[in-house]
């Protein structure tokens, strides 16, 4: 993955300014950047209809009977006679009102298809995010504290394996081992009800988590090692503070900031991984829907899921930036990063 390891270097001069307004300004500005990004993404998503080879009407119509009345309806709905940008305007307006069009495979509103599928994906993502953060931070911390030992090397190696083996390969492996050979976990379906669902989604969540966890392990480990070497940690030790206090108030807390900033990467990893994992484990989630729609060239559905995924990633990034601002006083109080 790409090193978005943020600098936590304590450089720079303090700009002494009030804290209140600067946070508001920062968040406002960050939101203001997000909106054009969302628009750009929506534009790309809209353009899919036209990027797709062939007649856009065909793309939107799918295999439905192409009698003149239906064709006319499609043309009218998507304003295909208008210039490209005008079409986009109309489409965007519909999207803003919560209308993503109609799936070509069943005349159903894309929004309601997505609504049906959303639950599984959210459950899966939350579960594996919990795993990624919980296990990832734990492993990263253990590796940092046992730096240079076999345990450290084993953890680092595990991370490298995780990031190197595609989620679907891990998935097939887990499925075969725990589902088929050991019968510990069910091998298909998302389950019904909370506990049953958690039970069914355990293997998929692990497969997903393993492929993403490396990022968190790597960053936590690096940040922790960096923190352990910091002057203020040495100073805290020199003052005789307890190791618990040093761990929690100094090392862990400070090294979590870069982990938070990596949340964007984690979310991208989970979204992408969910696609493969849902396919591997036959889960009726958004990822499987996307792949299915691609295989059937169901453009409206592809547009819907892509827009949703991208918007989600954008919003998480926004949230991460805001959280980051709140938890790191250096930014909250408006320090100049140099």
């Amino acid at each position, binding site marked *: 993955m790409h090193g978005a390891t943020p600098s936590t270097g*304590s450089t*720079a*001069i*303090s*700009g*002494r*300014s009030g804290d209140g307004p*600067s946070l508001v*300004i920062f968040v406002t500005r960050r939101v203001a950047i997000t909106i054009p990004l969302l628009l750009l993404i929506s534009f790309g998503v809209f353009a899919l209809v036209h990027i797709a080879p062939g007649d856009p009407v065909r793309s939107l119509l799918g295999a439905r009977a192409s009698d003149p009345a239906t064709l006319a309806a499609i043309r009218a709905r998507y304003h295909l006679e208008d210039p490209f940008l005008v079409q986009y305007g109309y489409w965007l307006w519909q999207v803003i009102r919560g209308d993503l069009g109609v799936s070509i495979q069943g005349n159903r509103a894309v929004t309601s298809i997505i609504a049906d599928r959303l639950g599984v994906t959210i459950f899966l993502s939350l579960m594996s995010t919990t795993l990624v953060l919980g296990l990832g931070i734990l492993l990263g911390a253990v590796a940092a504290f046992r*730096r*240079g030992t076999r345990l450290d090397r084993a953890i680092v190696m595990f991370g490298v394996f995780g990031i190197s083996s595609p989620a679907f390969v891990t998935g097939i492996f887990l499925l075969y081992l725990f589902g088929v050979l050991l019968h510990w976990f069910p091998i298909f379906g998302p389950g019904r009800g909370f506990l049953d669902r958690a039970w069914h989604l355990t293997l998929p969540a692990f497969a997903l988590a393993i492929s993403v966890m490396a990022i968190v392990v790597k960053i936590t480990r690096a940040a922790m090692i960096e923190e352990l*070497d*910091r*002057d*203020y940690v*040495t*100073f*805290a*030790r*020199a*003052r*005789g*503070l*307890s*190791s618990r*206090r040093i761990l929690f*108030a*100094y090392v862990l*807390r*400070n090294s979590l*900031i870069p982990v938070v900033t990596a949340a964007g990467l984690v979310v991208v990893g989970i979204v992408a991984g969910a696609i493969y994992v849902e396919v591997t484990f036959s889960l009726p989630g958004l990822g499987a829907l996307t792949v299915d729609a691609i295989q059937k060239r169901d453009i409206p559905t592809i547009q819907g899921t892509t827009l949703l995924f991208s918007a989600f990633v954008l919003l998480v990034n926004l949230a991460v930036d805001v959280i980051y601002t709140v938890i*790191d*006083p*250096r930014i909250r*109080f*408006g*320090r*100049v990063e140099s």
Partner: protein
Amino acid sequence: MNAVVGRAGQEGPLLKVEGLAISDGAVPITTPLNIVVERGETIAIVGESGSGKSLTARAIAGILPPGINATGAVTLDGVPLMRLAESELRKIRGSRMSMLMQDPFTMLNPLMRSGDHIDEMLRDRPEFASRFARADEVKRRLAEVGIVDEDVARRMPFQLSGGMCQRVALAAALARDPELLIADEPSTALDVTTQAEIIKLLRRVQRERHMSLILITHNLRLAFSICQRVYVLYAGSMLEVGDAAAVERQPFHPYTLGLLLSEPPVDIRVPRLVAIRGSVPRAADVLDSCGFADRCDWAKQICRTGKPPLTALDASRFTACIRQDEIQGELDALRTAALSAAPMTPRRGETAGALVRVHGLVKTFVGERGRPICAIKDVSLHIMPGESVGLVGESGSGKTTLGRCLVGLETPTAGDIHVNGIAAADFDAMAKADRVRVRRTIQMIFQDPFSTLNPRHSVGQALGEALGASAGATSPATAERIASLLAKVGLSAAYATRRPASLSGGERQRVAIARALAVKPAILVCDEPVSALDLSVQAQVLNLFRHLQVEHELSYLFITHDLAVVRQITERIYVLYLGEIVEEGPTERVIGNPQHPYTRRLVASIPRSAIQRAP
């Protein structure tokens, strides 16, 4: 070492370090060291970089970095520290022995309010169980270190100045009232005036608490000014130990003498600084000889046949020089000569047309959220051909910005710069020919010797580029031209093939000077060119500057915070304070008789030795 007489009425020294040897894996960092600290005593461990002084301090406190280990015995008030478990040691740290570190900006947890650093030290104590009791105590503790502004406790560390941070850290280190404080270069990272305040504060606190203090420093002058005894550490070995006053008066080891002599005096301009040749070796490379032998004028074969032991000369004096009795006479003579050296009269530059003329220069940076930050406000100055001018100021005074404006690295917001009569305020707006002429007139030497050379280029490549690819270069670089450049800065032609990584700081700075000289400039802007160098090397480079000035009729704009350095190298100085020139005049006048309150403060903050110069 047990010969040191304890103060009457006390039972033995507070801290006893015996045979402390530090190593990085199998690579030794120090030979076995012995240190004694009496109750209420202040000692200094003095050494240049690589001497192992900081690690010695950390070994005493039991907080060596991972991978570094120590053997020997450290006894604090009868308790053998090195045999204690980490959990036991933790109870001693902070409450009996505490430590203060060098960089005030990195010593405090950036995510914790400054008051909490003191607060967290108090939590274990029953009388401070309540938050309010602790808050009161934090206030009291901050007051002790001179912070009366109650708001400081609530601020984040990055909102405080370096001096403030150092005070907060001191209060935190002292929060459990330790009997021993180890201060590792507590003032080095601070501005000159703040340095003096922090040292004063340390002394006051030490006296009031009757606390023992170990001061780790590279600054002999500072050590002599506040410590009772001095330990001189060099390449991992103790070379000399003794009463501060005695050592200063009559050093027994050639190294100590060299250090003393190479330190430029602030009050006079000496004809030539006494430099120690070469640079500090690694401890591992000098295991079986006197560490200083290679740089010593008196070294004989005997110095290289084994590590000379630290031997007692009288009750309070120790030296590791085995030829001490033979050479002491010469040492004394040199010392006396230096003290009585006749001040050199600086040569005055001609008063004809100025080489560089700056008028009404203003530089504003765009700060956070578009707020302008004024680095330089209306500065005017001039430099005559062949003249060496000092620009003195602390960090944030705008002195570096001014220098960068002169060589076109920054474009001033307003004002004029004329170099050789060419308007050179905005390099982008200049005609190409003019730009080439200005570039060939004015060059710059930078502060950090470690990044002043491209690590991927050999010395020859760097100089070759300056000769052949710089603005207006007409002829290609040849090996001869490179060799002659190297010769100008006192390096042999063999250096051309070397890479920066294999050079010492002083050598790099020489190469950087040679590179600047490649275009035969009339003036060099030198931005703190020696401040990152070890004292013994600093003198070499300063001598080189002086030599080059005479040889090539160079002008200098010498930017520095160090009055002693400007004293040695400049004829006239400008004092820059918060972007404005507050005082200007001949160097001896400004330092000898400062007018502006800021200049006075600056001059007053220099640690003075007890010994007065012979009139």
